[in-house]
């Protein structure tokens, strides 16, 4: 693949909630295509296993007991937050609840 379409790059940027400047746009169109070409190599690998290695651990059934532990004080919850009003963290009004 040579390069991605501008639309494709915009879609990915929107998924990642990043702005892509016009200057970077061309750059990304080629770079993402390069990466895809690179990872295309994976598709041709002939492997016998169908098992996924999600994380290299043999851990299994790691539960925690249904117990309540100490919780945060409001001061801590809000410590690094940028916009706090009374008892809440505030964001610009959103209505469309998905």
């Amino acid at each position: 693949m040579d390069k991605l379409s501008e639309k494709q790059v915009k879609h990915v940027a929107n998924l990642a909630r990043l702005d892509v400047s016009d200057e970077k746009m061309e750059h990304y169109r080629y770079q993402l295509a390069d990466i895809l070409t690179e990872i295309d190599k994976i598709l041709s690998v002939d492997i016998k296993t169908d098992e996924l290695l999600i994380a290299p651990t043999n851990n299994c059934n790691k539960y925690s007991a249904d117990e309540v532990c100490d919780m945060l004080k409001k001061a801590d919850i809000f410590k690094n937050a940028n916009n706090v009003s009374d008892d809440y963290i505030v964001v610009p009004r959103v209505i469309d609840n998905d």
Partner: protein
Amino acid sequence: MLIPTIGIEVHVELKSNAKVYSKAKNAYSNEPNTFVDVIDLGYPGVLPKLNEQVIKNALKACLACHCKINELMHFDRKNYFYPDLPKGYQITQQDTPIGYDGYLEIEVDGKKKKIGIERIHIEEDTCKSIHSLTGTLLNFNRAGVPLIEIVSKPDIASPEEAVAYVETLRETLLYLGISDVKIEEGSMRCDTNISLKEENAKEFGTKVEIKNIGSITNVGLSLNYEIQRQKELINQGVKIIEETRRFDDNTNTTILMRVKETGNDYRYFPEPDIPYVKLPNEWLDEIRKNMPKLPNELREEYKQLGLNYNNIKTLIANPDIAKFLDSLSCDKVISSNLLTGDILAYMNKNKVSFEQLNLDSNLFVELVSMISNNELSSKQVKELLPVFLEKKESPKKLVKELGLVQISDTDTLLKIVRDVIKNNPNSVIDYESGLDRAIKYLMGQIMKESRGQANPQMANKLLLEELSKIEK
């Protein structure tokens, strides 16, 4: 003819002490942002835990819904940006839902039908958003509260079936004791999707999703409206668009929220922070062993016992009362009448739960047998009950204490006795042919006529005297 195809997705908050991936308290609080842990905030560096009880509760739901169980499961991340989603992803189960391919049996107009269940999976709730004029306020108390999502197959063919499905599901989960299932309070949330197609068409029509359905009644109302709306459009030759609508309970209509974006790109991938879960057989065995009687099963039992439709409905809606009834060995019809009638009314009036009522089953049985022996009129029962429920003393004793008036005046009693004899010639014949139960029956009638106020001993004496006169 256009026929509807309906599917329903139900989100249910599960009961537990702690949240699903953190150890913050899973409960409602009036105080915002108090039941919060670093994990619920999605703080940099934190990792999820996995609450054992949540898995067990989800398993109960799966088994009650006749699902197959994914014995080896992992979790997945569903990635999207929204202010109520602290991590920017929700930990859910995409590839390996804990349960799949089950069903729930519903009954509409006396006809039974199995509604297929596609999948049941575990996930986490989001923050509660409060929308004010200046902005949206985030309350993290709800973030990380355990949920199961129950996705039906598109097997539902009418709004009535949809209502029955949601109701049956709600009852079932209530009986499992794993959720409050209060739709009005948000611990159970329904989204429906509906499409119309010509009766014999193979392909489904275009699906429209309905959200924000705040009650079981609204499930029916919203679907009825939507069927009408879509029918009109189709008949006008307008193409249905794939969109999400919300139910507006002021106007009983559905309102467009948004047109579906082409394929939500949630970038699912397996959650690396939670190792595989292999459900132990012992868990399944234990849950199966301790599975309570579920509403469908109870309904059948009640029918066999001769309980009426309304009583059955009320009993199913009140599992603790049904459980109490189940434990009794006395007349179930009288018992159920009492429990779902005067006692439930008392509870509602005094705002006490059945548990708080702390009803003694022996005393209750005593009361029931008094009623079945016609020792009390229904009027007297009404008078006696509040006192009985408050004092929790023997009803026999209370009747005396209350001095529930008895007719001991011979003239009045004699008049009643004579009327009863006159009105029940068959029983008199029975008596003459030596059947003792005729006396019992006639006594019953006397008690009834006197609204239970006849002095039983006197009435009995008078009855025998009058009958012997007829013999002569």
